[in-house]
């Protein structure tokens, strides 16, 4: 659509800004922003899974850990080159993601959340218990992606990974698949009745988002140099949920902005200890209560109309339902 072109040019501004930022940051904030790229990839992929496809998974961090540990263990035990290891982690997380998607084909809404929550819990306990492989709670030391101690190469690598995965996901959403995924969210039965292979798309969206999470996990592990089972804890998941919800769970770029905002906020509040998670929890509640499409969407001036809109009619024709949603939400 022609009206989209100015939006795309507008997006060059933050990209250029992010590329020009490192020389202006001290080493602490450079590290913080680099880590926030990791969370941004997670939040955006979770927004695709939960916001777009309506699969409210609480197991997303487990897939990041699968990517991280797969790559880390390959590098430590088999001396596999790090980039190849990250690629393997990406594939491994995708495969496990597809399997989990397949397992919860028949589950919906809160049941799927419960299932994935239990999966993440068990996965964390496995990481702790099988210490002869994973070094348990002590953490697995993994080699860095780059030689040297500077965070700058990691900053750019993380940012490029974010841009690539975000573009790939947005491209996917603008294709026919994106419409099917939204149909899945709006009414699985109606979508099925229209001949959409809901099973296929459910497994597909789990595989893709999990693989992206695994990619983020692999990058994170080789960036900070240590992997611990804490990667999979409920507070970490809460952080990612907060990021996506604050940014706007139906907008991938919103989730990215939310991730950077929330992570920087949580670093600013680091001295307050656990209090920052209280603040984040309250932020989630307030955002959900008063601006359901996120503060970012609100800031762009589209929120007020969206947040109190009437529910989209559960149309029998999912294409119609999906286009109705498309009219009101922004794919980016």
């Amino acid at each position, binding site marked *: 659509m022609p009206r989209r072109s100015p939006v795309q040019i507008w997006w060059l501004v933050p990209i250029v800004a992010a590329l020009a930022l490192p020389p202006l940051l001290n080493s602490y904030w450079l590290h913080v922003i680099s880590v926030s790229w990791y969370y941004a990839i997670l939040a955006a992929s979770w927004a695709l899974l939960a916001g777009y496809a309506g699969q*409210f998974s609480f197991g997303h961090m487990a897939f990041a850990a699968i990517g991280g540990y797969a790559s880390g263990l390959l590098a430590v035990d088999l001396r596999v080159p790090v980039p190849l290891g990250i690629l393997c982690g990406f594939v491994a997380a995708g495969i496990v993601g597809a399997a989990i998607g397949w397992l919860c084909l*028949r589950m919906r809404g809160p049941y799927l959340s419960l299932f994935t*929550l239990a999966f993440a819990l068990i996965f964390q306990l496995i990481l*702790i218990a099988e210490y002869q492989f994973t070094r348990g709670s002590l953490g697995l030391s993994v080699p860095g992606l780059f030689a040297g101690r500077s965070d700058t190469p990691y900053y750019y690598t993380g940012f490029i990974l974010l841009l690539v995965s975000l573009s790939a996901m947005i491209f996917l959403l603008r294709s026919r698949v994106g419409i099917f995924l939204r149909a899945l969210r709006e009414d699985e039965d109606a979508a099925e009745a229209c001949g959409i292979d809901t099973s296929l798309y459910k497994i597909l969206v789990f595989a893709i988002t999990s693989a992206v999470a695994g990619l983020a996990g692999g990058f994170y592990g080789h960036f900070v140099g240590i992997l611990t089972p804490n990667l999979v804890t*409920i507070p970490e998941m*809460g952080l990612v949920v907060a990021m996506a919800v604050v940014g706007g769970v139906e907008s991938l770029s919103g989730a990215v902005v939310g991730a950077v905002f929330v992570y920087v906020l949580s670093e600013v509040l680091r001295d307050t200890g656990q209090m920052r998670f209280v603040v984040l929890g309250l932020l989630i*509640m307030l955002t*959900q*209560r008063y601006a359901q499409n996120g503060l970012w969407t609100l800031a762009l001036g589209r929120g007020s109309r969206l947040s*109190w809109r009437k529910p989209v009619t559960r149309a029998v024709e999912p294409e119609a339902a999906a286009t109705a949603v498309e009219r009101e939400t922004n794919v980016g």
Partner: protein
Amino acid sequence: MFEYFLLQVLNGLVTGLIYALIAAGLTIIFSVLKIVNFGHGALYMVGGYAGYYAIQLLGVPPILAVLVAMAATFVIGVIFERVMLTPLYTDKVDRKDEYAIIVTFALFMVLENAAIVVFGPFNKRPPSFAEGAVHVGLLTITYDRLVAAGLAALLLIALSLFMQRTSIGQALDAVSQSRDAAAIIGIDAKRMFAIAFGLGAALAGGAGALIAPIFSLSPTMGDLPSVQAFVIVVLGGMGSVPGSIVGGILLGIVEGLGVGFYPDANRALAYSNAFGALLLIITLLVRPTGLFGRQHLRME
């Protein structure tokens, strides 16, 4: 060996009764509001601390502290419902399941982390209900466990009577069956939603106060029992209080035996917490939408 087995069964029975109490609260919230309360475990934890501080600061006797804990969590539950859940009853929220998941999960985050800030990360142990233990042969059961099990059973009986014999209990039941039909015969559904959430929270809080002298208190104590409660609710049938009682006791016993008899002792300790989660996964694989299926689940 047989006595060890018996001891595990008895211990399982005590924790099972506590689980049943938590699960009954979750069930009431689920059946009336049609939402899964992801903050339930945190309310259980808050109840434990409320009881602790009632004993330590106000000098309330330990058994009455359970009632104080229930009152405190009831108030928290009603406030949360009034402030955060009212949009669910209107058309202001599309995709109500997701809204409920997010805000109750946020409740969990807020309560658990606020507890770390306010109560400190270290374990606390309130005084016993009654010192000492009963010895039967080689078996030893502390009075704390007996009192906790007895009070839990008493609360569950009181709950069943409340649901069956009082007008509020019947009104809750009516709203859970059909919101519209209940409205036609003059039941104020909004009031019932607040009562249901408060009551569910109070049951979790009471369970927390009962378990406190047995296992000590910590801000993260609610993480696992909430998973257990989910298992029971999914297993025992949504909206069925007797179902959650039977399910709770069964789970407690199975867990006690599982941990007691797991071959590799080192791993058994690490995996003891995975038991409930594994059971939840298996239950959901067999019954992906619980016993009553999807119609029962959707917000109206």
